[in-house]
């Protein structure tokens, strides 16, 4: 599998393809009788998916130098990120075990695992990092994505930036994510009964049963 190319020098703003560590996501905040509970998920690694031009325009509002835009038309509330999971744990279906989730095992040496590592499975994106980057082979699951406050990410950026995918590789990730998100879920169409209808037999079953499921790859 081809290794991705990355840059380790961060630029002056959040950029598409940036990889950050230990990013927190607020799951919920609840208050009852004066007791407040905050539940948050901490993701060891995430990659930024928001379009880079949007991030570039948003950064103008936060820049200390340069002319600020006249209005807030291009300002963002949040940045879209996707968790980056340890590939070995994904193959075992154990990458979310600490949040009480058991995932499907994907045999690494079987066809499904090999297809995943070739980025031929639409749901997943395999990332193999260069040797000088302290990240093990990883997988992005396009079913998992979250928004992170721009302000939070800007503050966390100096300490939590790990590296940035080079342009070609970030475009590959972005395009595959967009393609997966834009997929059309089709119902499982049940084939009609093979028996020939007789004059006394009931009408054939509906082609779309009530409990039809949606194919989500």
């Amino acid at each position: 599998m081809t290794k991705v190319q990355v840059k380790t020098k961060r630029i002056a703003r959040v950029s598409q393809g940036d990889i950050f560590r230990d990013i927190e996501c607020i799951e919920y905040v609840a208050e009852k009788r004066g007791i407040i509970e905050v539940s948050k998920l901490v993701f060891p690694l995430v990659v930024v998916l928001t379009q880079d031009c949007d991030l570039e325009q948003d950064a103008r509002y936060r820049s200390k130098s340069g002319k600020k835009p006249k209005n807030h038309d291009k300002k963002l509330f949040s940045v879209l990120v996707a968790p980056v999971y340890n590939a070995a744990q994904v193959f075992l279906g154990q990458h979310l075990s600490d949040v009480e989730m058991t995932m499907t095992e994907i045999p690494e040496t079987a066809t499904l695992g090999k297809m995943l590592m070739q980025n031929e499975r639409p749901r997943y994106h395999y990332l193999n990092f260069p040797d000088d980057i302290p990240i093990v082979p990883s997988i992005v699951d396009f079913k998992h994505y979250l928004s992170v406050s721009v302000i939070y990410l800007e503050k966390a950026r100096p300490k939590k930036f790990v590296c940035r995918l080079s342009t070609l590789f970030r475009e590959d990730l972005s395009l595959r994510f967009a393609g997966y998100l834009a997929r059309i879920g089709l119902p499982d169409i049940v084939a009609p009964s093979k028996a020939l209808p007789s004059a006394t037999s009931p009408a054939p079953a509906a082609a779309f049963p009530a409990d039809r499921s949606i194919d989500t790859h």
Partner: protein
Amino acid sequence: MSRERQQPFKSDYAKDSSAPTVGREEAIPPVVPLTYVKGTETPAVGKPHGNDKPYRVKIRGKISRD
């Protein structure tokens, strides 16, 4: 449309008789400072630092309305 539907964010504060009222409506919650008094942080499963699996942290604390 019912009165309840017009106030989807009506909170328990509105039931407080000391809450200020505005005009004929009574559902404007008072603005009170919330002070974080004491919180307990649930230890994360596994290693909080250096762990390569996502984990959950819950923080509980009492808030004061003084």
